[in-house]
């Protein structure tokens, strides 16, 4: 069953620039989709339509049968989005307050919020930081906090925009592990990156964008050999004709 259907989606910015054009994408529940493309190819613009931060100029985005523009709040609850810049995503004064921000907006009861906060913090391994101030966290911890903030809203789809930017090797592995365990727990994952090396070994599907359009869509091994035409570096292993390994081992 398709949990996400994007049909003929076009977005034009208010200054007239074309953001994305005529995008069609169907995502089944539980899929792990990597969206790649060079800088400015429209990845972020596409993702922002999934939870109604941008509304389409033309076309529709349908989440589990209901269009995003029809019920934006539902879309925001269903699609948890972890932004490119984790710092600007932090709203709260302490780690646990930040995680509680989303559930509070949903008007949940206090005990329910507490339950969700501790569950989300445990899921990302930040439980011992609950009363810390977010500014003192490291880059990787901030990103995990952003993930916890999103998890506390019980989303079905998780969207990660460049989750590995600015992270060191252990940081990347930590976040990757996190993403994989969320995928295993049944979340549908969409992830953008221009560095396929780190994640492609785990994905079921690869989508390549260029100039606001989807130019390739298929399984990683079908497509990975010609990504370089579109300004994305082909992972080393696949250049050498080997299977892409995991960064986790």
């Amino acid at each position: 069953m398709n949990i996400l259907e994007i049909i003929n989606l076009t977005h034009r910015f208010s200054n007239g620039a074309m953001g994305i054009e005529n995008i069609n994408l169907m995502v089944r529940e539980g899929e792990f989709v990597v969206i790649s493309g060079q800088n400015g190819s429209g990845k972020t613009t596409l993702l922002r339509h999934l939870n109604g931060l941008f509304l389409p100029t033309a076309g529709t985005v349908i989440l589990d049968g209901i269009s995003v523009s029809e019920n934006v709040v539902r879309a925001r609850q269903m699609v948890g989005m972890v932004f490119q810049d984790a710092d600007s995503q932090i709203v709260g004064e302490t780690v646990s307050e930040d995680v509680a921000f989303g559930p509070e907006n949903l008007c949940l009861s206090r005990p329910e919020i507490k339950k969700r906060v501790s569950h989300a913090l445990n899921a990302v391994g930040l439980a011992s930081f609950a009363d810390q101030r977010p500014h003192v966290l490291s880059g990787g911890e901030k990103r995990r906090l952003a993930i916890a903030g999103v998890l506390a809203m019980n989303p079905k789809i998780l969207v990660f925009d460049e989750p590995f930017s600015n992270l060191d090797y252990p940081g990347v592995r930590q976040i990757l592990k996190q993403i994989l365990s969320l995928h295993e727990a049944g979340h549908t994952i969409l992830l953008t990156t221009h560095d396929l090396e780190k994640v492609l070994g785990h994905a079921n599907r690869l989508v390549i964008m260029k100039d606001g359009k989807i130019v390739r869509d298929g399984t990683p091994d079908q497509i990975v050999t010609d990504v370089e035409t579109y300004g994305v570096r082909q992972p080393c292993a696949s250049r050498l004709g080997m299977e892409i390994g995991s960064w986790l081992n």
Partner: protein
Amino acid sequence: MAELTVFGYRTGTSLLHILDSRFKLACLILISLASLKAYIPGLSLLILLLVFAIIHIRVSFISVLKEIQYFLILLTFVLIARALSTPGTPVIEFMGLTMTSQGLYDGILVCGRLGTVVLLGLIFVSTTRPSEIKAAVEWFLTPFPFIPAKRVATMISLVMRFIPTILNQAKETADAQRARGIENRKNPVYRLIKFTIPLMRRTFEDADKLIVAMEARCYSENRTDPELSSGKKDWIALLLVICLCILIL
């Protein structure tokens, strides 16, 4: 951000941490008002109590002094100005300037009052979670029909969330400009302009990102109410504070 640690919440389990924030706010206001009317004996008692309170909440004294160093310099100026400008019996005469005993007394009084208020604020802020301060302010404002308490509360929390960000940004901008030799420019107006414009631009950009992040997490003014609970302890504390105020007046 390390410089900002004192003027911010620190976790703890002391009595002052446990008290209800509404009562703490009320006590803060009461003592501040009383201290503005108090004289030397009352003030000394008050400052002594505040010093004990600071030891009790386990904030390091040196960091407090460091935090308020500029304020102390200001107080010294106030003291000197008062001492020199008030007519009365001279104590010291030096190069045509006379320091009078009345002036000295006045100066100490003013400094004592200002110092008390600052110490009080410091104790309040470091023992109360920002969300609790927000909740207390909201609670006090709710009876007033023309003030949108929830909106004010959100604004307060956003301001508190933003101050460290802005300071951090200011420091980064200043460092970046120093690295490129801004100090060779002697014109202060030029330097001010070159400093303020990028700082403002970045602050607004950050604010924009924060808005998007809040929207993505379903922000609405209609949210779960903050949790406040008062008990016998709080009433006793309030009663003691009232007695104290009467005593020092």
